[in-house]
């Protein structure tokens, strides 16, 4: 099975000018089984994006190992799809062409491509926008195109860096349900980074709270809200007592961290 194994992972950036070192990540250890849904939470600058970039293969770790299904991750690959913090769409292409970019690169026949693209645009709620240039879309729509572009490629491991940050409350909730459904139906491994504690709780079968300087996993939770979310409405879950309890606990934790950072300065 293709589990993601992270062993004593360290990442140190060296600033090009003064040579100052930033320990973005230090001694990260975890194993993510196939089909697990992981959400990552933490204050700004604690190394969440860095971790995701290394899993995607964009960055090489300074030390430590990162293995997927027994193979060392040594570069980007189609089996790991990424949704970026900022869309990273190709602004010279239409929505259709953006979404089927990966398929075109694989030389998939046009008819099949069209079918897949239409299906995914429908899922993310952009049916009918196929021929619109992406620069004419709103921020939230662009983010949804990015989501469709990643998912249409059918990756095993889906990496999402604040995918829903730019969406309005309603669309956001719909997308959250969508991600849960996807996860259930396809059984894919998903790592999702978010700044919203609620979202992290709802979309996390597992949840890492990370701490900065050096970037590390501060606390890990095993939650069952994601499972519940498949059956109940997300809004109902948010009303539950145990949900609120964990939320308060994590918020306090992050508050303390932030205070520490501020005091440290």
């Amino acid at each position, binding site marked *: 099975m293709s589990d993601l194994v992270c062993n004593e992972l360290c990442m140190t950036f060296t600033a090009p000018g003064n040579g100052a070192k930033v320990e973005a990540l230090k001694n990260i250890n975890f194993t993510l089984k196939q089909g697990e849904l992981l959400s990552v939470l933490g204050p700004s600058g604690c190394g969440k994006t860095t971790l995701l*970039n290394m899993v*995607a*293969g*964009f960055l090489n770790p300074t030390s430590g190992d990162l293995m997927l299904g027994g193979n060392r991750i040594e*570069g*980007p*690959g*189609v089996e*790991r*799809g*990424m949704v*970026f913090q*900022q869309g*990273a769409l*190709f*602004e*010279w*292409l239409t929505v259709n062409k953006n979404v089927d*970019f*990966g398929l*075109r*690169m*694989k030389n998939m026949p046009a008819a099949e491509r069209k079918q897949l693209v239409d299906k995914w645009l429908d899922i993310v709620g952009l049916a009918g926008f196929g021929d619109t*240039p992406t*620069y004419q879309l709103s921020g939230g729509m662009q983010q949804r195109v990015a989501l469709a*572009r*990643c998912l249409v*490629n059918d*990756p095993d491991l889906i990496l999402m860096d604040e995918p829903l940050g730019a969406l309005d409350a309603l669309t956001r909730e719909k997308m959250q349900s969508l991600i849960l459904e996807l996860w259930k139906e396809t059984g894919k491994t998903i790592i999702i980074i978010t700044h919203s504690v609620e979202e992290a709780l709802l979309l996390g079968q597992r949840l890492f709270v990370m701490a900065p300087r050096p970037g590390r996993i501060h606390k890990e939770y095993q939650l069952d809200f994601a499972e519940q979310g498949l059956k109940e409405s997300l809004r109902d879950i948010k009303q539950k007592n145990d949900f609120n309890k964990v939320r308060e606990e994590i918020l306090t934790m992050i508050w303390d961290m932030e205070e520490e950072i501020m005091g440290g300065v």
Partner: protein
Amino acid sequence: MFEWMSYNRGGIAGVIILGLVITLLWSIYHGVKTARRREKEQVFGDPERTMGGWYWAVCGVATILLLWFYYSWGMARAYFPKAANELCQVAKVHESLSPIVAQLPIGSRYFKSTDLVVRNVEQLDTISAEFPAGVFSAQEESQLRGIIAQTRSLISIYSNPNSIDAATRANLSQIVGDIDALTTRIQSGHAGLTPSDVALAQAPWGVTHEEIPLLPMTPRGVLFDGIAQELTGISKEFLTLRNMPAEASRLIEKTRKDIASIKANLENTSADEDIIKARKDYLKSVERVFKRLDDGTIFPANTLDEVNTAVAIMIDEVDTAKGSLGIIDAVFMPGEGVVKTRTICIEQGSSRWLPKPSDVVSKFSLLANPNLEDGGGFKGTRLLWVKWLPIADIVGFFIPDGLVDMLPGEYGQHDSDGQFMPTFKDNLLAFAQGEVYLGSIPMLDGHIWDSLFRVIVAMFFGIMLGVPLGIYMGVSRFFKSFFDPMIELYRPVPPLAWAPLILTIFGIQDDGKIFLLFMVAFAIMVISARTGASGTQLSKIRASHSLGASNRQILRHVILPNALPEILTGIRIAIGVCWGTLVAAEMLAGTTGVGFIENVARTVSDYELIWVTILIMGLLGLMFDLLMRKLISILIPWRGKG
């Protein structure tokens, strides 16, 4: 039709100027109105603000054209067609007065006599102070010093108020009287005067090559012309006046003899070469001062006071009589106005080097005329036209003769009757050499096309080779570091500095120029493509990697489109620079092209032609740029929105 337009070009220009003024005012009104309305809707710095606004473009163009009309005296010619002719008559008066004025402190500070006295006394002082030691014998030295003293006393004699003789005094007052009489005539005006038929038959101002008609065509002009003729007589009389008292004549006679004797003396004595030269030089400088003083043109102080007053009054009166003419001259004829020299009146000022729009238009239509026998075109080449290009020429150009040589078979030989029957291979050769008629296609032709062709070909190769190299340089360490030194070394050298070398290697015809332009275009294209390629957002590259694109696909589908805005901007800049370089290169060498026309025009100071070529270059450059702007907005609508 054409002739009628040419003859009435002044009037036509008048209508156009009026139209331009109205257009200018209208566009300003419209622009201000629109600006008021829009100001509220848009924030400063919004790119939308710089779009459109064609009325300001109209305003700008109208301003330029009006300035052109103004500085080329086009307005004066359109609205005051007689002014130049009248001013020509005034210029005649001033020209006739000029010999007398030269003696007077009019337009200068001192009487000429005073100037002469001061200058010559100064020189005499210098000469006696710098008397060379050990060159002359004691006797010669006293002789020379005597000559200097005599010259000095000559000045004193001239300057003595009592020295001037009665006849000269009488003549001077006669001249004063004549001038006063003429002044009175000017004051009494030009009523009753009529221009002659010959004068009226002259072509109006600016129609013929002579520009300003010489004979007076208006009553006021007739008055000035008459005055000028009389003044010429008076001036002649004045020039014969001399202040030469008997004492001065005697002194001059004596000094002449002294100089002659010392000269003869020097001839006879032999000495060192250096000494002889020093003697001769000194004697010459003494003689030079004397000769300046032996003609009696120095008058004692105050002698010419009355003449001065009379002339000053006359000039005042001429100015008064000019009336509105003076204002037209000052306002509408920037520069020195109309001046008479010898037998013609000419325009002095900006209008000399800035031809009138009408002249430029007529020059252009002459140049644009495709009929070479009819005097059209320039140096046997049309400006821009269509010609029929035999297809065989093109085929012959592309198929090398050597290819036929390599085919099997033999070339034919003459047979026993002395006949030559071409073999199959001979026919092929004729084909490869472009000697078979294959029909013709229409093709542009002419100076403008020659210039355009060079730019287009150079741009084509520059883009085809520069863009791929630039993109590779933007993504590959090897390409960047390997080619960077070469390109950065040759690029900063101004293209024209390369020109002598390139033209020697590749020839002064198309090849050399195209290569020169290619160098320009290539460097610009490489740099812009490189900047565009290396500026691709990292997240886009990463995204395409994890979407499974190969390196080649990323180059083609991500980096190239991402660099497209920079590439197109590069093309836009390259076309502009190429165009500028080309014209300069054509001026250096060659026999066709717009720059060549200007080069010829320059050597013959044909200002109209120079301006025509400048306008052609400017308009074509503008056209290129507008085309590129349009292309950019069509091809990359996402620019600045990613």
